[in-house]
């Protein structure tokens, strides 16, 4: 598995026409796998920035499928060349549990921002997945969005492994940092009543401070709409903000709550617009992110 992923990533790097970098990488992976002393990995891991740039990878449709076959939910199309090279280096280190953790813990503890990005985004393709859960949870304590995103967005690891409390904390923090929720893998599947209540409390806090809430928050509420949530959704509907209103209507449409139907009937034009959008939550999320730039 490690070799397969590694070969695939090298193949992705080859599109970058960086033969100097690739030669260096090949030499380093040989050194790292043949001399299992951490120093070789440490040096190569940090020096990778001298050989690879932070240019986004470009994947063909076929390569996107291959990535998903290798590891369900794996999305290296959001990776850059530097982090890809760092993942290759990491995968070339012998997966012998005790020494592996000793070495990789050192990398986590001494990493700079971009090294953290590489390490956390690589979680789904690393060995000893379940033992890495505490590391991923700890990583989310950052407020550097680059690092937070590497764990929370476009990454199958949290949805697959996080206990509910940690999952909910991650989503709440993503809301707090206004990260694009539509990029969180498994967001719909892992909605739960506790998280809906947390989202509701958060909305109340924001409203009390005279601020708006991000529209994507209502997606978390949708399956659990009842009388209590209904009053909040109505309040959001009164915001006169189209994005906010679209999000509420989407949530109402998904809910099985009887009185929701009546509300939807009051906004026929907006509902019609939602029907036009195949991925309405994604487009709401994208549009909201644009308002932040």
């Amino acid at each position: 598995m490690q070799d397969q992923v590694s070969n695939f990533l090298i193949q992705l790097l080859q599109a970058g026409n960086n033969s100097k970098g690739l030669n260096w990488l090949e030499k380093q992976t040989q050194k790292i796998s043949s001399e299992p002393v951490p120093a070789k990995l440490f040096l190569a891991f940090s020096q990778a920035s001298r050989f690879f740039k932070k240019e986004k990878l470009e994947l063909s449709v076929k390569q996107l499928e291959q990535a998903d076959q290798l590891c369900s939910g794996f999305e290296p199309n959001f990776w850059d060349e530097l982090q890809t090279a760092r993942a290759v280096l990491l995968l070339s280190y012998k997966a012998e549990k005790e020494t592996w953790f000793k070495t990789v813990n050192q990398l986590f503890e001494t990493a700079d921002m971009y090294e953290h990005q590489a390490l956390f985004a690589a979680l789904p393709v690393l060995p000893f997945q379940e033992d890495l859960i505490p590391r991923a949870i700890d990583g989310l304590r950052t407020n550097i969005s680059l690092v937070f995103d590497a764990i929370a967005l476009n990454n199958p690891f949290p949805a697959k492994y996080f206990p509910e409390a940690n999952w909910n904390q991650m989503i709440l923090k993503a809301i707090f940092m206004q990260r694009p929720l539509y990029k969180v893998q498994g967001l719909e599947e892992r909605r739960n009543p506790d998280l809906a209540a947390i989202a509701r409390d958060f909305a109340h806090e924001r409203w009390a401070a005279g601020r708006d809430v991000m529209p994507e928050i209502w997606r978390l509420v949708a399956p659990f709409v009842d009388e209590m949530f209904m009053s909040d959704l109505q309040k959001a509907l009164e915001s006169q903000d189209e994005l906010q209103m679209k999000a509420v209507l989407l949530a109402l449409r998904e809910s099985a709550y009887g009185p929701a139907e009546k509300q939807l009937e009051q906004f026929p034009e907006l509902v019609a617009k939602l029907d036009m959008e195949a991925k309405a939550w994604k487009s709401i999320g994208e549009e909201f992110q644009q308002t932040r730039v």
Partner: protein
Amino acid sequence: MYIDPHIHVVSRTTDDYEAMRKAGIVAIIEPAFWLGQPRTEVGSFKDYFSTLVGWERFRASQFGIVHYCTMGLNSKEANNEPLAEEVMELLPLYVGKEGVVAIGEIGYDDQTEAEDKFYRLQLELAKEVDLPVLIHTPHRDKRKGTIRSMDVSEEHGLDPQMVIVDHNNEETVKEVLDRGYYAGFTIYPHTKMGSERMVEIVKQYGPERIIVNSAADWGISDPLAVPKTADLMRKSGIPEDHIKLVTYQNALTAFGQSGQMDEQDWLNAAPLDQTKKMSGNSVLRGGQTPRVEGPSDIVEN
């Protein structure tokens, strides 16, 4: 535009950062050094090194200053040999990181055997990773210590052009320059150079390979020493292009040999944004309004 190529900003306040930026400092280099209180555990070094490439770099960026650093085991703490051995094992994790522009400050303090041993080991490390070296010259027995630093560096085959010998004075400058090294001068009240003496040195030796810095730290020191010395040079009739060399360009040329420091880093910097946070910590405390330059003035959260 000025560069202060030697300043220990972990010890300075945000007021200092604001004043530095206002005075025209665009980039700084923070050499790894001792902290006054001797460290007794390798973990203290690890977190300090991480601070240099992490939090402090971020904090500086919040004030529009580009932060670089040097990595090394200082000579004073080299005398705790068991600990020094552990620090040497740690260094490979840091020396290759982005923005690490030299191995330093290394060299001699009391000129002991242990200091010599770890100085030599780090010269070899610098060669291995192809980084410049920043040499700290001792306060006591300075002249002899300075010459010994250069002798040993040459013994290990380092090119003097890759070595910055710091904390020079009138007694050391001639030999350091004659042997082809960069000569750093620290404007530090009481113990090192004063601005007036610095002016005389530039008059006498010219601007080539001379670098002015503040080495401001937790002692009585001045984070504006570089711009203030430049002003005094102006008043003393030193030509503007000479001033630029000793307060900006020479540092960039010397440390730029690392491949980790580029003028574009500050000329094309992203707009200042104090709303960014790191590790849950903002540089702003409750009630302060973040300063944001550039296209967006709207602050979320």
